[in-house]
């Protein structure tokens, strides 16, 4: 690493290349020129690397990976439940119930479902008591008070046509855009 006439080194400039120039750099023509040189040269290579990844057919490769993954089924918890329509004992997977909850949320103008989990909380068969975890982001013009009732309704409407239930507890977690929890509320419903 070379030393510039001002006393700073190339390394000093490189260490802060992603940061705005400090006061010294702003006033120093050598540092300024060095920063520009390093940015130009690195930018040139970075641009080339972005534009040309050798031996790569992204779609074909992704498809190959997806083909492999298809061989590994996700673990799905199965539940013994009572069919809401016929009253018969049936088995449903968590994913079937989750899909129904997602479908209910898809209509929502005020909240977006980021993640959900559903579990039976009783030991009897068929299961009648359920706990649902709902992680949602809410629209900027909405409020917690508005969506908490909506969320309970969505979950209730989603599972009621599929399974008979007696008690429903919804753990509502409101998240920001990055999935960080802002607030948690427990909602309860009975049938």
């Amino acid at each position: 690493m070379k030393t510039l006439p001002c006393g700073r080194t190339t390394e000093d400039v490189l260490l802060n290349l992603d940061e705005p120039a400090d006061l010294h750099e702003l006033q120093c023509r050598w540092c300024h020129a060095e920063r520009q040189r390093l940015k130009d040269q690195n930018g040139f290579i970075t641009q080339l690397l972005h534009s040309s990844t050798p031996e790569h057919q992204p779609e074909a490769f992704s498809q190959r990976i997806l083909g492999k993954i298809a061989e590994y089924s996700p673990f799905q918890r199965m539940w013994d439940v009572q069919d809401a329509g016929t009253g018969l004992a049936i088995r449903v997977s968590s994913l079937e119930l989750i899909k129904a909850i997602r479908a209910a949320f898809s209509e929502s103008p005020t909240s977006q479902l980021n993640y959900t989990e559903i579990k039976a909380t009783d030991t009897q068969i068929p299961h009648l008591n359920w706990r649902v975890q709902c992680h949602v982001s809410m629209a900027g013009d909405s409020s917690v008070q508005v969506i908490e009732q909506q969320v309970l309704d969505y979950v209730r409407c989603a599972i009621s046509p599929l399974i008979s239930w007696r008690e429903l507890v919804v753990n509502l977690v409101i998240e920001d855009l990055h999935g960080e929890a802002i607030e948690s509320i427990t909602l309860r419903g009975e049938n």
Partner: protein
Amino acid sequence: MEPTRLTVLVGRSMEGDPEAFGELVTALTPGLRQYCKTFFSSWHDAEDATQDAWIRAWQSLGSLRERAAFKTWLYRMARNICLDRIRQRANDQQTVDDEVLEQTPVPDRELPENVAVQRGEIADAWQIINGLPSALRQAFVLVALQGMSYKEAALVTNVSESTVRGRLARARNAISEAVS
């Protein structure tokens, strides 16, 4: 991919939705493959490791604690797979241990300053990157190419942010010397 979209897809994948996971694979594979290449001399090895990382991710999604941290979680998993593979192959060209990696002398033929490069004459900029020790290559690919923050790159490579900063500076210096 926007963070919001990523969070939603990760959530759906954790629920067991293969379509959502497929979207993640399609969106993140090019970057992951590029990162895996920092450990190997061949793209073929990098692709095998990339594929294994996705399979392991699919099987271990239940252990993911923070959905927002999915990308660093995936890259860390890929890094471990790459290091395991290198360890298994004692005769591999790349060195294994992270600390050793930093000290690894680069083969003369690949030393960045030995690569006679003129602007407009670069047939393959990867030749320069491949000339860097793996630790520097990882820092450069994660931060400069893939836009990760220093913090994220530090989490992936299991070092401090200041180490990432230092490695990136050394990588950039080597690149500048190769170009000028």
